[in-house]
């Protein structure tokens, strides 16, 4: 049995259902499963699980499911090094969002990551502690800041409403997800010119650590061919499977 996880709620779920429907695949909820299990009409060998977007990323990493659809931001945060652990099979053209570095609009002297680096160093020198970056994306932030050669900062974990952290005084800078930038602007924040960490969208991804027996591989091949007959998605995945 091939397991495929899709988001259990919100716009991502609706977009997913529409995307499958466009490809002639109708989802049927399993009886008595309280909406957490489903299947595709005529494809009994594919088990569809409805999970939260974050759970899908961690289940792919753990090898608990074969395939999953979730945001690329969550996948890359869960597994900073995708190679050998997960394979991105296909971007799906919805769920667009950018993970960005944003600072106060009042920081008129800060437009780039290089400016932020100067400010981080000046802040550490003056206050004898590091400037705080609030985020749900600690891994993405750490590697992006390392690439930008910034080391004088510290990450504070944000549980929600990250955009409010600079005004609330719990952090000076944020790394957050944005689609239109409106929420950031409403909070007096601006995105740095070179502060886009990831242009994310929903991805169909495979776990490379799941149990890929011969039956599962066959099911996967026919599923991927049905989803995109022209793209030869399966051979690219099969090359990564041990």
């Amino acid at each position, binding site marked *: 049995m091939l397991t495929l996880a899709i988001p259990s709620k919100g716009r991502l779920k609706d977009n997913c259902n529409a995307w499958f429907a466009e490809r002639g695949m109708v989802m049927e909820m399993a009886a008595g499963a309280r909406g957490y299990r489903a299947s595709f009409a005529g494809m009994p060998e594919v088990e569809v699980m409805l999970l939260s977007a974050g759970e899908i990323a961690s289940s792919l990493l753990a090898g608990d499911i074969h395939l999953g659809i979730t945001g690329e931001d969550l996948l890359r945060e869960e597994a900073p090094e995708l190679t050998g652990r997960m394979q991105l099979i296909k971007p799906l053209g919805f769920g667009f969002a950018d993970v960005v570095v944003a600072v106060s609009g*009042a*920081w008129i002297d800060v437009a780039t990551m290089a400016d932020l680096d100067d*400010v981080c160093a000046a802040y550490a020198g003056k206050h004898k502690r590091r400037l705080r970056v609030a985020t749900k994306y600690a891994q993405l932030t750490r590697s992006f800041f390392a690439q930008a050669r910034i080391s004088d900062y510290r990450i504070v974990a944000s549980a929600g409403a990250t955009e409010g952290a*600079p*005004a609330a005084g719990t952090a*000076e800078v944020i790394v957050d997800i944005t689609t239109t930038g409106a929420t950031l602007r409403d909070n*007096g924040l601006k995105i740095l010119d070179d502060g886009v960490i990831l242009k994310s969208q929903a991805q169909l991804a495979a776990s490379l650590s799941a149990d890929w027996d011969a039956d599962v591989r066959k099911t996967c091949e026919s599923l991927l061919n049905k989803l995109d007959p022209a793209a030869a998605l399966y051979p690219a995945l099969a090359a990564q499977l041990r």
Partner: protein
Amino acid sequence: MPAFPYYDSKAIEALNGQAVSLLGLFASRGYGREEPAVLQPAEIFLDRSGEEIRRRTFTLMDPSGRELCLRPDLTIPICRAAVEARRSLPARIAYNGLVFRHQPGEPHRPMQFFQAGVELLGLEDRAAGETEILSLAVDALKVCGLSDFSIRMGDLTLFNALVDALALPVGWRSRLKRHFWRAGYVENLLHWLGHGDGQARPPVSRAEIEALLDARADAPLAGRSREEIIARALDRAAEAAKLRLDAKVADAVAQLLDISGPAEEALAKVRALLATAGINLDPQLAAMDARLATLKSLNIDPARVQFTAHFGRNMEYYTGFVFELWAQDKEGPVQIAGGGRYDSMMEMLGAKKPVSAIGVAIRTERVLATKRGGT
């Protein structure tokens, strides 16, 4: 060494025996052993050191939600205790204990290992402090029965003094110094400064900047003062107007960063390059000569002393003289000790003024392994 080492009775006996010799030597030089807690509040490591140390620090939450960590080194907790206790200075402190470090991408490396070492805090005579610590490091390996080792050294003040001698705006100078430890990056910056177009931007007035800021009155200042923001915006505008470095000087500095080799030859090359660029760093070079003289007096073969101009780059909290001792085990060269000067640490940890600080840490398990399998 496996990721989760198991110490059998023979290993423990060997380690303990070596520790007794080391701590005996340290005590004979006035360094009494102290021991900070293994479990530490996380902030002192996470706030005072950069993400590089944070990345390698094991953190955990206690049941009340307080963030703790396993000590990634002994230097920081020892310094913090010294600051909090207002220790009379100079203070001489020895330690021997486990440290814990996550080894991302290197699963075969141990995540816990023993370090034995000393910290010399608050000795104003820096040259005397360096001689004392360098001698102690060399003698420590000797009491462990290891005489076949080489030394690599450098000095972070050399690069800082060099940058200060350049005709660059102060912001750019501090940027170069700050990024010294990132191999490649500084070289690229220097090339850009010497050979780039150095485009001038139109001047900006204070009034214009204030108007910009007033237009964003709704936005939070986020930890900075209005004046701080204005001052930096003005500096940045002024810098942009005069950002250029003589290509000959930029190239000389880049070449200098590349110098590495037997210390006496390497320092001669440094002197020649500085003369070409018209830069005087005599005090820094004299300090380097004094360290070489110390090693000579300890009967270290000068051929085994290496000077590397960019040495110390990847070590976050050192501020001046840095050194490493290397030996061979059965897999190749292995670092068995490292140390240097970290003059800004005590102030970072709350001391009212800067305190001279220098120390060395010995990887005791590696020393044992070297003696077992080395040449």
